[in-house]
């Protein structure tokens, strides 16, 4: 590997178009000519209305979907299959309902061939880090939505991903829990230093978390505009939204979206 590859962007989409073929044989364009770059350790948020192809963007980066045109590169190399350096947090609960908390968190290391005892020990550590100590033996249905989300975060972070993709992870939570989880996420992210793509339809959430916000429009999804968020870190979510710079940026994006 040369120096350029190491210092290049973590994720680079250039001129990406993605088409679906529907069962009745028609072709549907979900994304058109998307160009996006995420630097190492950068936190990027993607905002847009429902159905604008935000989730498809993430599928392209994970390798679960392939672009119809253009290129998707992760860490300087084209995406080929599922990359071990990627972590993904889903919108809905994707924790395994038949595994208890400890076994859910240990899933990644176990799948990747760690010995059971070692994986469970590591899992115990992560369960504590997300504040679920004492719940190791609980099954997901015995936990609240916020606690299940913590399990999902621990499950993803235990693999120490260099790239973290999040698909509206907190949209199903109540406002209070959501703010707690956002703070939790920023804490975990700052200790891990991963590059993040955070998809959301909540503009305030995007601004309060990210370094940069991509705004997509729908039908088919295209990048409408990009905003730099100059807010200082570390941020406290419940306070950052009252900063004048936050309010100003939020107003600018809203007025752009209205056009």
């Amino acid at each position, binding site marked *: 590997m040369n120096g350029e590859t190491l210092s290049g962007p973590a994720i680079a989409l250039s001129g990406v178009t993605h088409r679906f073929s529907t069962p009745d044989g028609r072709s549907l364009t979900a994304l058109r000519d998307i160009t996006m770059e995420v630097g190492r350790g950068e936190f990027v948020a993607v905002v847009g209305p429902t159905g604008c192809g935000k989730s498809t963007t993430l599928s392209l980066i*994970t390798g*679960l979907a392939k672009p119809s045109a253009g290129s998707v590169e992760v860490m300087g190399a084209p995406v080929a299959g*599922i990359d*071990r350096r*990627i*972590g*993904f947090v*889903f*919108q*809905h609960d*994707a924790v*395994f*309902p*038949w*595994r*208890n908390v400890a076994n859910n968190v240990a*899933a*990644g290391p176990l*799948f*990747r061939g760690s010995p059971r005892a070692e994986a469970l020990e590591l899992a115990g550590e992560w369960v504590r880090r997300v504040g679920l100590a004492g719940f190791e033996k609980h*099954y997901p*249905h*015995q936990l609240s939505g916020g606690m299940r989300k913590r399990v999902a975060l621990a*499950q*993803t972070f235990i*693999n120490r991903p260099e790239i973290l993709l999040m698909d509206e992870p907190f949209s199903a939570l109540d406002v209070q829990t959501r703010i707690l989880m956002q703070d939790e996420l920023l804490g975990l992210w700052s200790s891990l230093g991963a590059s993040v793509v955070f998809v959301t339809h909540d503009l305030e959430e995007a601004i309060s978390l990210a370094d940069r916000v991509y705004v997509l429009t729908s039908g088919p999804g295209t990048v409408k505009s990009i905003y730099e968020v100059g807010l200082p870190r570390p941020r406290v979510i419940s306070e950052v939204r009252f900063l004048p710079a936050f309010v100003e940026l939020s107003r600018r994006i809203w007025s752009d979206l209205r056009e």
Partner: protein
Amino acid sequence: MKSKIRDESAPALEARDAAAMAKAKARKRFVIFLRIAFLVVILGGWELSARLKAIDPFFFSMPSQIFGQVWSWAVEGTAQGSLWEQIWVTLSETLMGFFIGAVTGILAGILLGRNALLADVFSVYIKIANSVPRVVLGSIFIITLGLGTASKVALAVVMVFFVVFANAFQGVREADRDLIANARILGASPRQVTVSVVLPSALTWITASLHVSFGFALVGAVVGEFLGARKGIGLMIATAQGTFNAAGVFAAMLILAVVALVMEYLITGFENALVKWRPAPLADS
């Protein structure tokens, strides 16, 4: 609203809880009473109308005769040996057929559920095979496999296989796509996805089918014995039928019902042990 709840003293709350519990208990006792009353009315009515010759006891028998028949079978044995042996023969045929049919059904369901090409190729044949009344196959099995256990097991297997297969297949197809994607991203190989995501998701479907298919296995074994056998409850029914012994037919039916209920109870226990991660149902009697 909140202050109202707080205003209530602890003893008052306790009294209300106790009252609610007493009410629930009383209702439960009432239900059990009604169940027994229903049984008494049906059996009593049957017995009475048979004794008063309102219905012909030769065709319809009567509860006392049926229980008498069960008793004499249990004590004196049946025409083809002891009652317990007959039960055991039928039960072992049923269990073998059930086990083989369930295992092959689950394996085939997972294989076709996970492989779209195999599913597209074979689904049409399975549909055809499923539309054949499978009991008819019993005659073929008797011809090829003889009067012994094998022909009954074979019939039970084909009865069970399609039910379990259809459910396992559907269960695999319905496995949550996000869960599969999550497992793959966490590092699972296709085999690991099958074992630790797809199989557990399909388990609810599979266990549900086991309840139904045990009954089918029993039907397979009994019909097989009906068609030709040397031992078993099905043969007892055939014999009773041949001698116009209505009480014998009903008595064999009663024995089969008891066997099926006991097995149903065991399967439920097995199911609960297997899917204990599921939330418990809220109300249970």
